[in-house]
């Protein structure tokens, strides 16, 4: 499912003293099946952008085209509901949206809202809970008895069970321990590859962006500054520093090594690839 944003302008509290333009004449597109990262410092308009992609916010001006559905200034609730079937959204701290008595019921909430029958919804819930490694005996437990990391997984399963074609994730690892962090990030990569869905990741963690994303969109002041392949944008140290973003650790390390005469072919994207590159370099250069 392709998403096209055309001339999107978004103004909060239009015509009040709090009036604030969050996005200004914004144009971009998201191709199906790719992993995107939306980056930019706080207040750059990232959150506003993603809320437009599934109809939580409607454009003040311009359009958002989701497949063959169009979101405009005054789009009907019925269309918006359709969009939500196709575009799933995992908010920051998604565990805050848990409410039902049991884990299973909570995950079934989304599918049921999409018009599935009880049996279908239950089957979906079981499928995605298993995918996330939740044992079957835990299905009947209350989601509030779990640890933060586990609660987040249940909440994510609740979105996945709706089987969206595009999945938007907003800071999915905020407040997680390092182990859960890796698990959650690997999970999104895995479902992108296995189910061929589009992932749109919003994050401040440039290491995650560098490791997982295919393409990056850099926002500042409500405008698109640059978009393109991750390896082109995240290796541009000046661009990142200008926009108050961290340089990924691996990029920094590779650049430091280059200055010491260790020059790799291509840029490794994660720790394992880095070690492989280093071994290759050793094999060629070691006496």
């Amino acid at each position, binding site marked *: 499912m392709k998403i096209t944003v055309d001339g999107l302008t978004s103004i909060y*509290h239009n*015509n*009040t*003293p709090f009036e604030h333009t969050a996005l200004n004449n914004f144009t971009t597109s998201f191709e199906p099946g790719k992993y995107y990262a939306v980056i930019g410092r706080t207040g750059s308009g990232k959150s506003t952008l993603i*809320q437009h992609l*599934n109809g*939580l916010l409607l454009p003040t001006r311009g359009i958002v085209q989701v497949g063959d559905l169009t979101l405009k200034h005054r789009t009907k*609730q019925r269309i918006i*509901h359709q969009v*939500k*079937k196709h575009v*799933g*959204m995992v*908010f920051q701290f*998604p565990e*805050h*949206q*848990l*409410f*039902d008595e049991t884990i299973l019921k909570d995950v079934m*909430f*989304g599918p049921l*809202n*999409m018009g599935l029958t009880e049996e279908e919804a239950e089957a979906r819930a079981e499928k995605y809970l298993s995918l996330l490694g939740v044992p079957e005996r835990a299905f009947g437990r209350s989601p*509030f008895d779990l640890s933060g990391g586990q609660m987040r997984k249940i909440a994510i399963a*609740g*979105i996945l069970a*709706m089987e969206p074609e595009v999945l938007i994730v907003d800071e999915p690892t905020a407040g997680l321990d390092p182990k859960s962090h890796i698990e959650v990030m690997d999970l999104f990569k895995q479902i992108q590859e296995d189910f061929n869905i589009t992932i749109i990741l919003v994050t401040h963690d440039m290491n995650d962006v560098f490791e997982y994303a295919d393409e990056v969109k850099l926002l500042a002041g409500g405008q698109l500054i640059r978009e393109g392949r991750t390896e082109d944008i995240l290796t541009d140290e000046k661009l990142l520093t200008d926009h108050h973003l961290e340089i990924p650790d691996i990029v920094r390390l590779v650049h430091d090594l280059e200055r010491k005469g260790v020059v790799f072919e291509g840029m490794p994207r994660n720790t394992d690839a880095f070690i492989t590159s280093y071994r290759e370099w050793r094999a060629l250069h070691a006496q």
Partner: protein
Amino acid sequence: MLSNMLLGRYIPGDSVIHRLDPRAKIVSVLLMMVIIFFANHWVGYGLLVLFVLGIIRVAQINLFFLFNGLKILLFILIFTFLLHIFFTRGGTTLFEWGFIQIDSEGLITGIYITVRLVMLLVITTILTLTTSPIELTDAIEKLGAPLKKIKIPMHELAMMISISLRFIPTLMDETEKIIKAQSARGSTFMTGRLKSRINALIPIFIPLFISAFKRAEEMAVAMEVRGYTGEAGRTSYRELNWHLRDTAALIVIIAFGVLLFLVRM
């Protein structure tokens, strides 16, 4: 949506009203609440509306913005209005259809009571819009100081009020976030049948209560670890100073009250 809500929200500014001593403002609001009930016919109500509009002007609050923020209470106003229209008898009958009868007296009372309610809302909203919660608490504590003599814990009460006021906007923002999260999961509490709309509130209220309780607990712990013990030997960082303008403000309010009393019929 909910973020337009103005109840309990403070907007910093630099008008005369903003700079008044919070004690003067609270006393003025209390006086106004009484004075509003002096008006009993159109001259009185007219003066009252003009006076309140004047205050809004002096406080430099955007009128449209103010009423937009109070829209959420429209339901109560309309309900009150209709109640009076249908159930107050007297004067000439304007409209009759089956058991429904509208009298001129009902229409007039309906309008008067609605104006009264709107004025009450506006006056109290002006207070919270122009006074920071901290100032309000300080003022409540100072004004209530005599009550300490009879063992009423004014400091604790003031603290509770200020914490509640402080958390209204936070809870509003939180509600909006949860509404968004659930509506991203396809929850449709804005459309559909009444029953399904009510059911759709459960996924919003439960997370909201949970986070409110968590927040309250964290707050209590944070206060405790910083050694909060209530009033015991507390001095104030902000001293309240009574200026000439505060006395003047009270005189204006009282003068207006007298005027309104004189035009009573």
